[in-house]
């Protein structure tokens, strides 16, 4: 237990989610604090709207005495979200973290390392919960005029809720990693492992929603609802089965029944943790030992290889190729920056495959696009989406952060900072274009989009892609997160990426909204977007080549 506390303490020192570590100057950077406040402010509207939905929902549902549904849905959705993010957190904290190498030689049991790492992942999940679950709990508490015990139980449940979903996520990751670690080419298999775990997560999510949706017929549900008495909570089941005890504990917080249910919930958590640790004792090291091994052939290069690879390239091109190679070959970057570009097309295709009925509606939409004013809206929407997708891949917004402490290499190479910034922006843009094109193709399969519109979308979206790449790299130049102990922290746990997503969503969203609201024609839309974003892009590029270069100059590790 003592070793667990020490270990967790050390790991938490590296937590540093908001990049608030004092620099060499000894002071906590003001910019970083402001950025954190800004991010928090950005999530506030979302939290407030969740809260107000809860308040409104309570008013309606308390009429039929089913207000417990709110808590039930809140816990279920939070569990699902925790589970989904959990896959990424677990991969990063359990496997990709650099501290593993220094922990392995220490006389520690696998379960001790596992317990400490699990705690760190739990803390990440509390942040997720703070956004999704906290507004539900507080909103419900206010609406039901709950007493002190409700809030006390609420806090306890808030703290314990991630246990089950996170253990599921860990179990899946550990099985996948234990298996892929057998492979020779670790990097490639880790990429495959990551993709597999992600698909498993998406698949299980879909499966759960389908299961809970069909296990009870509409008639039965109606009958149940009519009973009142919060009967909904009683039928909650599925893999997050213990959530029903959480709901019952909160609903009956003033009675003994509440306490019993709370105790049951906590007991289940403890039981699962014990099971998890003893299971992990055997399997965790299978995925971890040798994870940093790299495959090598040690075969002499041939004359043709030397000939082919040795052709001189212009500096900008050589730099872009280097950036892209690192993006494609580093598993974490591949998953978060490259794969991300294909997730949105997947989101378009998957639901359509699951529910073919919607296909017909899309055909109708297709004719609307061809005949009516729809083409303008499609152009505007595609523009906005492509700018947003580019920001979600995070390549530009983490371009400086990804260098980490090796940023010094950028400093001694005889390549101007302007060229380096341009190369980094272009590598982000190229993946943005790939993402946009793959989305267009996915959409074209299901919707009859005219060829000229496809061409226009491709041309116009370049301006949006450039914008979000430029703004991303400008943000990252301002707040580079260079001190990290695993690559995941440079891309996934980097608020610059989130901030750029917000900026891109807002800046691309406003003109799109205006165009739709004012019923612009296709050509007016085209002209507006090209003009507005052409100017914005030029402006940003100008800032990058002046202020951006100065910021780059000033970065020191």
């Amino acid at each position, binding site marked *: 237990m003592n070793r667990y506390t020490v270990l967790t303490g050390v790991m938490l020192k590296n937590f540093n989610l908001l990049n608030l570590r004092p620099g*060499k*100057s*000894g002071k906590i950077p003001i910019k970083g604090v402001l950025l954190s406040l800004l991010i928090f402010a950005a999530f506030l509207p979302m939290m407030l709207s969740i809260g107000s939905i809860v308040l409104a929902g309570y008013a309606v549902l308390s009429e039929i005495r089913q207000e417990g549904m709110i808590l039930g849905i809140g816990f279920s959705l939070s569990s699902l979200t925790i589970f989904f993010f959990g896959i990424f957190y677990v991969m990063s904290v359990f496997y990709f973290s650099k501290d593993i190498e220094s922990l392995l030689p220490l006389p520690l049991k696998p379960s001790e390392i596992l317990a400490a790492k699990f705690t760190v992942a739990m803390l990440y999940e509390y942040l997720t919960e703070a956004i999704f679950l906290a507004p539900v709990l507080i909103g419900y508490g206010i609406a039901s005029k709950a007493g002190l015990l409700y809030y006390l139980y609420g806090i306890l449940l808030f703290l314990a809720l991630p246990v089950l979903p996170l253990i599921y996520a860990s179990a899946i990751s550990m099985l996948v990693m234990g298996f892929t670690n057998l492979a020779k080419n670790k*990097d490639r298999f880790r990429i495959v492992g990551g993709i597999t775990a992600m698909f498993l997560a998406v698949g299980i999510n879909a499966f759960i929603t389908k299961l809970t949706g069909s296990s009870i017929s509409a008639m039965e549900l109606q009958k149940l609802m009519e009973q009142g008495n919060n009967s909904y909570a009683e039928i909650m089941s599925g893999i997050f089965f213990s959530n029903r005890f959480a709901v019952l504990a909160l609903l009956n917080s003033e009675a003994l029944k509440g306490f019993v249910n709370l105790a049951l919930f906590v007991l289940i958590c403890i039981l699962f943790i014990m099971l998890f640790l003893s299971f992990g004792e055997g399997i965790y090291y299978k995925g971890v030992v040798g994870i*940093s091994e*790299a*495959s*090598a*052939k*040690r*075969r*002499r*290069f041939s004359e043709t*290889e*030397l*000939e082919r*690879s*040795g*052709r*001189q*390239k*212009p*500096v900008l*091109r*050589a*730099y872009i*190729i*280097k950036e892209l*190679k*690192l993006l494609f*070959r*580093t598993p974490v970057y591949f998953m978060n920056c490259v794969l991300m570009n294909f997730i949105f097309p997947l989101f378009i295709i998957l639901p359509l495959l699951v529910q073919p009925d919607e296909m017909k509606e899309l055909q109708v939409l297709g004719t609307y696009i061809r005949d009516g004013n729809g083409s303008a809206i499609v152009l505007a929407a595609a523009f906005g989406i492509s700018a947003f997708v580019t920001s979600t891949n995070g390549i530009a917004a983490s371009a400086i952060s990804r260098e980490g402490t*090796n940023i*010094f*290499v950028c*400093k*001694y*190479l*005889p*390549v*101007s900072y302007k060229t380096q910034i341009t190369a980094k922006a272009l590598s982000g843009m190229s993946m943005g274009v790939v993402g946009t094109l793959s989305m267009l193709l996915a959409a074209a399969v299901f919707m009859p989009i005219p060829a000229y519109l496809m061409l226009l979308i491709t041309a116009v979206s370049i301006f949006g892609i450039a914008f979000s790449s430029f703004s991303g790299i400008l943000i990252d130049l301002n707040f580079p997160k260079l001190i990290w102990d695993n690559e995941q922290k440079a891309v996934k746990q980097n608020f610059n990426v989130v901030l750029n997503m917000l900026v891109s969503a807002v800046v691309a969203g406003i003109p799109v909204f205006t165009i739709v609201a004012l019923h612009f024609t296709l050509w007016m839309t085209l002209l507006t977007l090209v003009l507005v974003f052409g100017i914005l892009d030029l402006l940003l590029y100008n800032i990058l080549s002046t202020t951006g270069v100065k910021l780059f*100059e*000033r970065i*020191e590790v």
Partner: protein
Amino acid sequence: MIELINVNKSYSGIVKAVDDLTITIPEGQITGFLGPNGAGKTTTIKIITGVLNADSGSITINGTNIRENPLEAKRQFGYVPDNPDMFLRLKGMEYLNFMADIYDVPDDLRKKRIQELAESFEMEAALNDQIQSYSHGMRQKIVIMGVLIHDPSVWILDEPMTGLDPKSSFTLKEMMKTHAAAGKTVFFSTHVLEVAEKLCDRVAIINKGKLLFYGTMDEMRENFRSNGSLEKIFLELTENE
């Protein structure tokens, strides 16, 4: 030639890492840079190479000021940092070609150099693998090769011998001698006093950011009226601080 005039650098505004350093590293000689751990060696080297900005003072490389004309100055030198863990996911060959592209090395010249360097550092069989599969010494070698591929006139090496096997260490030392003999500049930091004693024409010793001694080995012995080893002089110098 490397010239530092009144260079200052402090962290947090309190700890002086480099304290009013003025030194000229001449051509045609091997200059060793010595000092205890944390003396400011790496910081000085990082300032010379443009990795860190000095608080004040001027740094010129072959007469070009690194702050005023950074690209021109950076083309003059090749730098081997103290930690070779970089570009780990590039193959050795890709890294060498990347460096050659950055420094504008034409096709036939780079091919010739890659072959020669691979042979003298015994890296022929490793160049097709990613750098992350290399041992520490091999990483050190690939970084050195990346520097030598563009044949810079000024060599700046931070602890270059660390992790090298005897043969590669010998090869590198011979290369350093040849380079200096050709009238070029070699500046390197080291902890290993025996290496400095055998290899260097001149040594600079710093501690707490201050230059304690700078001159030839003979001057040093004369100065300290001692026939003792460099080790003895070094220990005396840095302990009396």
